């Protein structure tokens, strides 16, 4: 994390629709120049939260401070906050240059400075050659760049990105994610991104805030949220995972069936669920010496290019997925007996909240 904490500060933020709490008591601090991703499934309240920051949505309770200033009562057009809209919302009746100039005109900026600023912004997103075009004449990626230039032109203190890649096709997405991240880093802007795509959140953000039913359920760096999910929901939303129910034998041992496997931080005697990522499971073709590996049978193989996903059946447990990489020849055929184990820190004990 970079910058000083609390540049953007949310306290007890709430938004209700009838009896539903779209945003349910959110507390969050985001540092200056930090890129923060709000990640969650559709309907989790992330877009509502973003629109509250923009001033496009009312606030039922709580406060929003930006750079020490209370934003609550400021209407959208007065906030030092700009947003890149989901489908970009470029004005179809204006040229690219006029779209970028729109926000500057509202400031009453003199023509020479305005023109210079528009050129600067278009150069930043490498769209200088398209200034006279209309948005309809641009490709999706080009429209996105114009939308970015338009939202950056007023030099906002906070930039909001609403599903920035949703309107692009898959191929272009990866490319644009990288490019967008470079631009945002280069101008050191504070930024909140809303997305339902975990890869997008992990590639672009310094920190991720995972949202579920209006609440922030976990906040942390992409690695932290991925490797140490706190709930079943967090574990599953960030990627494929094996969820295994067992009883904690001691602080670092969990009983799964008739074997004891390593884990970390369990309360002895409790029924717990551990989450193990498929790539963290070690596969053995002979029983390891410690004698406490899960014994199972290989039942299926999915070839995914660089790696393979093996399906393993272990008596008394749900079917497990294991990811192995390396040469395909080394993969045993289905029906082979295999043994599985993992390192203690790779089996995360989940909170039984959900």
């Amino acid at each position: 994390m970079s910058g000083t904490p609390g540049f953007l500060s949310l306290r007890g933020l709430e938004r209700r629709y009838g009896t539903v709490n779209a945003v349910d008591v959110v507390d969050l601090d985001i540092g200056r120049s930090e890129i923060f991703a709000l990640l969650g499934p559709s309907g989790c309240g992330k877009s509502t939260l973003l629109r509250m920051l923009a001033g496009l949505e009312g606030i039922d309770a709580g406060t929003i401070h930006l750079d020490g200033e209370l934003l609550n009562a400021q209407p959208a057009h007065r906030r030092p906050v700009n947003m890149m809209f989901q489908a970009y919302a470029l004005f179809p009746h204006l040229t690219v240059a006029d779209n970028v100039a729109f926000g500057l005109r509202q400031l009453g900026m003199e023509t020479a400075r305005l023109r210079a600023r528009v050129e600067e912004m278009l150069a930043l997103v490498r769209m200088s050659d398209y200034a006279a075009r209309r948005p309809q004449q641009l490709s999706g990626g080009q429209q996105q760049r114009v939308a970015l230039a338009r939202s950056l032109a007023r030099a906002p203190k906070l930039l909001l990105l609403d599903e920035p890649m949703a309107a692009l096709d898959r191929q272009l997405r990866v490319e644009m994610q990288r490019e967008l991240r470079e631009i945002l880093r280069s101008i050191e802007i504070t930024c909140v991104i809303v997305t339902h795509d975990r890869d997008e959140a992990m590639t672009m953000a310094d920190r991720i805030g995972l949202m579920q039913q209006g609440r922030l359920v976990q906040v942390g760096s992409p690695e932290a949220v991925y490797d140490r999910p706190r709930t079943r929901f967090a574990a599953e939303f960030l990627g494929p995972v094996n969820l295994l129910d067992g009883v904690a034998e001691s602080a670092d041992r969990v009983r799964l069936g008739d074997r004891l496997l390593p884990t970390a931080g369990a309360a002895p005697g409790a029924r717990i669920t551990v989450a193990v990522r498929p790539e963290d499971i070690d596969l053995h073709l002979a029983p390891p010496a410690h004698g406490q590996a899960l014994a199972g049978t290989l039942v299926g193989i999915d070839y995914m290019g660089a790696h393979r996903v093996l399906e393993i059946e272990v008596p008394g447990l749900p079917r497990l997925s294991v990811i192995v990489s390396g040469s395909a020849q080394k993969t045993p055929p289905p029906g082979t007996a295999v043994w599985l184990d993992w390192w203690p820190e790779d089996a995360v004990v989940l909170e039984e909240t959900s």
Partner: protein
Amino acid sequence: MPETPARPWGRWLVIGIPLVWLSLFFLLPFGIVLKISLSEAAVAIPPVQPWFGVEGQWLSATFEHFRLLVSDTLYLSAYLSSLRIATVSTVLCLLVGFPLALGLARAAPRWQGILLLLVIIPSWTSLLIRVYAWMGILGNTGVINNMLLALGLIDQPLVMLRTDFAVYVGIVYAYLPFMVLPLYATLVRIDPALLEAAADLGATAPTVFLRVVLPLATGGIIAGSMLVFIPAIGEFVIPELLGGADTLMIGRVLWQEFFNNRAWPLAAAVAVVLLAVLLAPLWLFHHQQSRSLELER
């Protein structure tokens, strides 16, 4: 749908039947109007020289009717007054219709259907009846005067019926749905995110309206205005029932020349000039229609 080479005659029937009907009963008549406007008047039934003049010389053209239209100030002032009344009514219609259309477009989707229906219903009832309704409201013993007299606000009835004011009210009332529908159609298609984007970029509500809503509604404004302006210029019923004897409108003049004076060639000449006046707005309307049809697809 793809073209179907298997049955080209089916394709030609689909195109041909409406094309022939409209050519015969819509296009051809204009040619005849032009021909009659150049014919001699006659004391006969019908009151024009026969189609084939004496000895088959059927192109015996005369410009006397057009000359009359130019020389007699009655006609010139009728054209000008029609243009004035139609222009003012169109602007009034736009001023009344725009907030209504905007309100419709912003209403909750489940209300839009019923509200739209409420706008259209009046146009399903008879124009004649709706104009007639205003006779009972604006007259000297009409609803408004009765109320004002009873309240003691006036002691002489206000003269409203048989004035230009009544004609404006009548045209706005009768043509309002034609203004509102195209306006609504364009306004409802404006992506709300554009308005939010404008506000996000610092535009105040009036600026959002002037710089985003209005430019994006241009198509609807043109279509609606033409749907009011063009028929209003030639309007007959409204000035006849609500206007005064001095409310000159060209539709009324044409009617009187035709029915009262039985001056068919002169009426035809009036129609020809009126059509010429309307060519520019007609072209504008057609241009707008085909553009929105293109967008539709």
